[in-house]
């Protein structure tokens, strides 16, 4: 059993409500933090080595230290609860089952950053979770942890939940701020960064739900202790949402010292591939990160076991590695079609492109149409190179990273599964009848445990 910091109490009866949460040590970090200076809190977060859990993995303490503090200008903390990256459903779990953990993290973080109005921007589809969060906020207010002059410190803070309208792009932090201002979710050109010019042009920090929840154990145990969990620059624990063709889909808190093989096959986590099938491929960090075939998932190109942490998942770069991303672990068994799956993701990115930059707007549509043709038996061999070319022209040429996020899955699918694309083109009729299967791909290693 790995160490649990966020989900230690998720099975406690009534933990969704203040009373049980408080009885189990809840809100202790607020009491502790309010006796510290703001700079000391930021220091603890720096020492913890916590990296943003929204996908980019940027060091949280460093981000906080960039926040501009001009006199007389309000500063804002905004919690990113837009969670729309395919394969990712961890923030939902935290908010739905232990809402007070997020609220507690938000109070400490708001205090550290000097935010008197803090917003949780939640994807509009999580409508029932809005009610859960608002209830938790009300309970925190009634118990003196939110509102005016919290715990007699003179610090005022209110937390508001803002419901989005259904748009993946609003997870991108500047699009989120636009949306929170009541506009279309068009990402802004950076710089200026939100730390200088964010919500209503004021200095703003945007952090993911899980990042802000992790502030609670960091303050409780101290940054140094937190940093001892994990390995290297992958400190602390990480929530992984596992889905696809596995026996036990769900949310797992891991300390980042376990191997991918253990995560995938042991009964404590995914419990192996469903229906006795074999592993074909996996997208280990949400739909935007490169897909890996079975052999490269379990071992790096150097032949070392691949571990569930930021560095190891990225080992080999895009040639043979992937990324931790948002922690959305998507498993494909031997019956899955890579072309069809890639087509589905291309459709997603085309649908979600805000349309501001032509490489992204046009390129995602082009990729979707080419993949559709290949999938439905109308593809040409040259389409595969064309697809490669289109994704190359999107990557790095857009305002926000959605362009890259759309390009990478396509690139990785062609890089590792080109033979399957070619088979689709050469055998259009057969490809309608059956799947390519494992065919030429390396088999997974002998199953552990």
């Amino acid at each position: 059993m790995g160490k649990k910091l966020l989900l230690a109490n998720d099975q406690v009866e009534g933990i969704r409500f203040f009373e049980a949460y408080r009885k189990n040590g809840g809100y202790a970090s607020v009491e502790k933090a309010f006796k510290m200076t703001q700079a000391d809190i930021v220091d603890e977060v720096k020492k913890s080595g916590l990296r943003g859990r929204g996908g980019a993995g940027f060091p949280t303490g460093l981000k906080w230290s960039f926040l501009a503090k001009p006199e007389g200008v309000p500063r804002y903390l905004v919690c990113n609860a837009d969670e729309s990256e395919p394969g990712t459903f961890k923030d939902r779990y935290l908010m739905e089952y232990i809402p007070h953990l997020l609220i507690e993290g938000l109070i400490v973080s708001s205090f550290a950053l000097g935010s008197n109005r803090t917003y949780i921007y939640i994807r509009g589809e999580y409508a029932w979770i809005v009610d859960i969060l608002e209830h938790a906020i009300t309970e925190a207010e009634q118990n003196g942890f939110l509102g005016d002059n919290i715990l007699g410190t003179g610090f005022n803070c209110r937390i508001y939940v803002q419901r989005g309208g259904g748009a993946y792009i609003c997870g991108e932090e500047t699009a989120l701020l636009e949306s929170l201002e009541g506009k279309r979710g068009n990402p802004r050109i950076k710089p200026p960064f939100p730390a200088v010019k964010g919500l209503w042009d004021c200095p703003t920090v945007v952090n993911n739900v899980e990042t802000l929840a992790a502030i609670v154990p960091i303050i409780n145990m101290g940054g140094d202790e937190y940093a001892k969990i994990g390995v290297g620059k992958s400190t602390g624990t990480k929530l992984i949402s596992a889905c696809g063709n596995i026996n036990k889909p769900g949310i797992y808190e891991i300390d980042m010292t376990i191997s991918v093989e253990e995560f995938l096959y042991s009964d404590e986590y995914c419990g192996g591939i469903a229906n006795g099938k074999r592993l074909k491929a996996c997208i280990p960090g949400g739909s935007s990160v490169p897909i890996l075939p079975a052999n490269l998932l379990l071992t790096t190109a150097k032949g070392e076991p691949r571990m569930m942490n930021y560095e190891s998942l990225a080992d080999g770069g895009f040639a043979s590695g992937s990324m931790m991303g948002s922690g959305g672990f998507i498993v494909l068994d031997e019956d899955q079609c890579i072309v069809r799956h890639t087509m589905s993701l291309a459709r997603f990115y085309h649908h979600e492109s805000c349309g501001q930059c032509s490489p992204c707007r046009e390129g995602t549509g082009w990729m979707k149409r080419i993949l559709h043709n290949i999938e439905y038996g109308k593809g040409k061999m040259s389409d595969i190179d064309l697809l490669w070319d289109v994704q190359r022209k999107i990557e790095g040429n857009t305002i926000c990273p959605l362009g890259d996020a759309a390009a990478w899955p396509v690139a990785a699918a062609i890089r590792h599964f080109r033979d399957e694309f070619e088979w689709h083109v050469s055998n259009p009729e057969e490809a309608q009848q059956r799947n390519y299967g494992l065919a030429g791909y390396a088999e997974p290693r002998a199953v552990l445990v």
Partner: protein
Amino acid sequence: MALQFSEKKREEVASIIKRYPDGKQKSALLPVLHLAQEEFGGWLDVPVMDYVAEILNITPIEVYEVATFYSMYNMKPVGKYLFEVCQTGPCMLNGSDDIIEYIKTKLGIKIGETTSDGMFTLKAVECLGACGYAPMMQLGKTYREHLNPEKVDGIIEQCRTISATNN
């Protein structure tokens, strides 16, 4: 004319506007559009959007451009029950294609259509953050997960019963 929120909804709008600093009431647009859609028949007709513009003191175009950007706002009428089935990769791995086909056959409609009695609309949507509980759909404010044909039948029955008792 005479479009107006109920007393209760007007209070809600007022409290939403208070979440933001003075003069930033435009921020209330997305939440208020959700309220308007709930109140005025499940979609946003032009007079509804104009009414929202008026109460937030912004121009109608500011409302249109937002309403058309986000997928949750319906720009045309929908059935009483909107089935929004996720079709993205992770759900596809667990049979969302089959569930969508099943609903199409069962209700006799294509994606984007409404049954002739105005009861059901079927939409195929992108990842809803329930990938581990696939296949799934959104129905009103809730998610229906681990779908299979029997569950879909049950949901349709349930909707019909609720609708019949409410009439």
